[in-house]
């Protein structure tokens, strides 16, 4: 986070919120008059709201739900706490099982190919770091909480890949019986992976949504957490493929095999790989979580459509259609990537509009310029606003900014429901 130099001329201590870029206190009477249903929020500790922290609370949807229950740092509506704890248990158990299955799967190769495995691990760690940074960064307004984002990738890294390896072998054997070994060799992956891998990754997004209901409460969160689960899956799969490529190339040049495989899977096909497919499917989870898992017909159809689009993309990607030449691969990658981008920019636009609308409403009641209030929807806008106040004031202004943004995201979630 950059800090602009102190500029005293822009600081107007006596008139909070009237200066361009400054955020007035939300604790004044005007604010309470704006959102009476959210007065309980004002009891939140003053130090809440640093980057990555949960917003103050859900706020009752439709004004009829009882008040929130606070459990440690997480906020849960009544009835959400026990399922959330159970979801954490499911997450831990599935990851442990996945780790055991993966270890069993990889043990022999790791023992024999120790040095190339280290190279593969380093390349995968780099892929993970870049993917993790990008997918947290592309969430509009602010990044998802770090621990939740990490857990989402861990599901992809361990649970989804570990279970998928066994599920795919089982289902692949059935295709061999049904289609014959030659047709199964050509079509098996396309018929297996879209079902097993997409549902296993999607299950992770659902588990995250239940474990951390405040972190995933709309389509944009579903997209981001889907992408994070997907990048975890991709990284482990890259590692497995890299080890497998050594045997597949007769162990003639293990380091070359590992590097070639990773470069192809990251540079050539990475744009349209697992992250994109599970981001599309994850958006469906966000659509359902936004309405407390009780969608109307249109929303349910949209959710099913998104999951089917992700599965279709995966099917196309793994199928022998268009051959294995550069054109065929490029067409498949483009289809998946452009589908993901179409979904992303649609939901991003809606989300940002809702957040800006809320910020505009808040700003109006606080006497802020509309453009200044709306500028707080972006990281750059908030940094710019912070830079315009005296350095000693910044922590307090930052807290106010974050409270406004939290409030804006709460309202955005409610707009989505309504």
């Amino acid at each position, binding site marked *: 986070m950059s800090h602009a130099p102190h500029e005293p001329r822009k600081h107007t201590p006596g008139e909070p919120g009237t200066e361009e870029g400054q955020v007035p206190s939300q604790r004044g009477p005007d604010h309470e008059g704006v959102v009476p249903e959210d007065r309980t929020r004002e009891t939140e500790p003053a130090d809440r709201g640093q980057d990555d922290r949960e917003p103050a609370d859900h706020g009752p949807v439709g004004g009829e739900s009882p008040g929130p229950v606070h459990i440690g740092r997480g906020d849960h509506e009544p009835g959400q706490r026990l399922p959330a704890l159970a979801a954490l248990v499911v997450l831990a158990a599935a990851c442990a099982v996945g780790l055991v299955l993966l270890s069993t799967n990889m043990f*022999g190769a790791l023992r024999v190919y120790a040095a190339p495995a280290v190279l593969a691990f380093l390349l995968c760690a780099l892929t993970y770091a870049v993917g993790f940074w990008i997918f947290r960064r592309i969430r509009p307004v602010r990044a998802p909480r770090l621990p939740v984002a990490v857990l989402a990738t861990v599901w992809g890294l361990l649970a989804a890949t570990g279970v998928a390896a066994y599920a795919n072998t089982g289902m692949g054997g059935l295709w061999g019986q049904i289609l014959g070994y030659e047709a199964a060799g050509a079509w098996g992956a396309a018929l297996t992976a879209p079902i097993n891998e997409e549902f296993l990754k999607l299950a992770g997004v659902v588990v995250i949504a239940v474990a951390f209901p405040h972190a995933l409460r709309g389509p944009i969160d579903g997209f981001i957490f889907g992408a994070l689960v997907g990048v975890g899956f991709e990284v482990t799969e890259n590692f497995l493929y890299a080890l497998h490529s050594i045997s597949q190339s007769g162990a003639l040049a293990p380091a070359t095999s590992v590097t070639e495989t990773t470069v192809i899977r990251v540079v050539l096909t990475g744009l349209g790989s697992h992250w994109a497919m599970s981001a599309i499917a994850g958006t469906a989870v966000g659509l359902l979580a936004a309405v407390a898992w009780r969608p109307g017909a249109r929303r349910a159809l949209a959710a099913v459509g998104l999951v089917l689009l992700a599965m279709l993309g995966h099917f196309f990607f793994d199928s022998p259609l268009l051959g294995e030449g550069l054109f065929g691969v490029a067409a498949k990658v483009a289809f998946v990537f452009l589908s993901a981008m179409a979904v992303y920019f649609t939901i991003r636009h809606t989300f940002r509009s809702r957040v800006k609308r809320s910020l505009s409403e808040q700003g109006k009641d606080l006497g802020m310029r509309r453009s200044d209030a709306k500028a707080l929807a972006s990281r750059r806008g908030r940094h710019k606003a912070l830079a315009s106040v005296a350095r000693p004031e910044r922590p307090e202004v930052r807290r106010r900014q974050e409270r406004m943004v939290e409030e804006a995201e709460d309202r955005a979630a409610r707009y989505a429901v309504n």
Partner: protein
Amino acid sequence: MAEATERETGVRRPRSNWVPLGVAAGAVVLLGAGWPLLNAVTPSSQALASDDTVDLGSGGDYAASLDLPQDGWNVDTTKTMAGQQYVFTRGPVELDLVSIQPPGGMEATPEDLWSGMETTSRVDDASAQLGEPEAATTQDGTRGLVGDLRTQDRTERAAVFPSPDGNFAVKMTLGGENATGADLASVEDVVEAVSFEHQEGS
């Protein structure tokens, strides 16, 4: 009653978070255990006739195939992934065959492949050790190496054959947990039943 009220007010009651959690956990268990169980209880072999030709994949200017010299061979449909790896069985005998694509455009020689096989065979069995290889030729005259592959409790036969341009290769192990020396000897010619064909227009 509650649903009627919901309809009147247009407000939907939230669904318990137990429902999505149950669905997600159920999906993981179903996929992770269901397919392997279903696969385990269904047959996983497909019979091959003696005149069947199995395509083993291609690389560079050549495609490889296997003409099984005996009747009674089956293909294991669970372990086989056409174009990459094949597992054939005949009674207690198992023939594992892997199509090899040398990395980075390098041209594989029989000696390189034999040395690589020493490494790859230890992935499944840390005690695996290759014996001294002997020169061998396939039925179409392609030169390769054949020798013993010793593990803790048995001796199998191993073979490697690169395509004439070295851009593709086939490696094989002929063994089986319960196969005797006589069982292996009776089908030993299968390892030389590979042939490489120059692909038109490549």
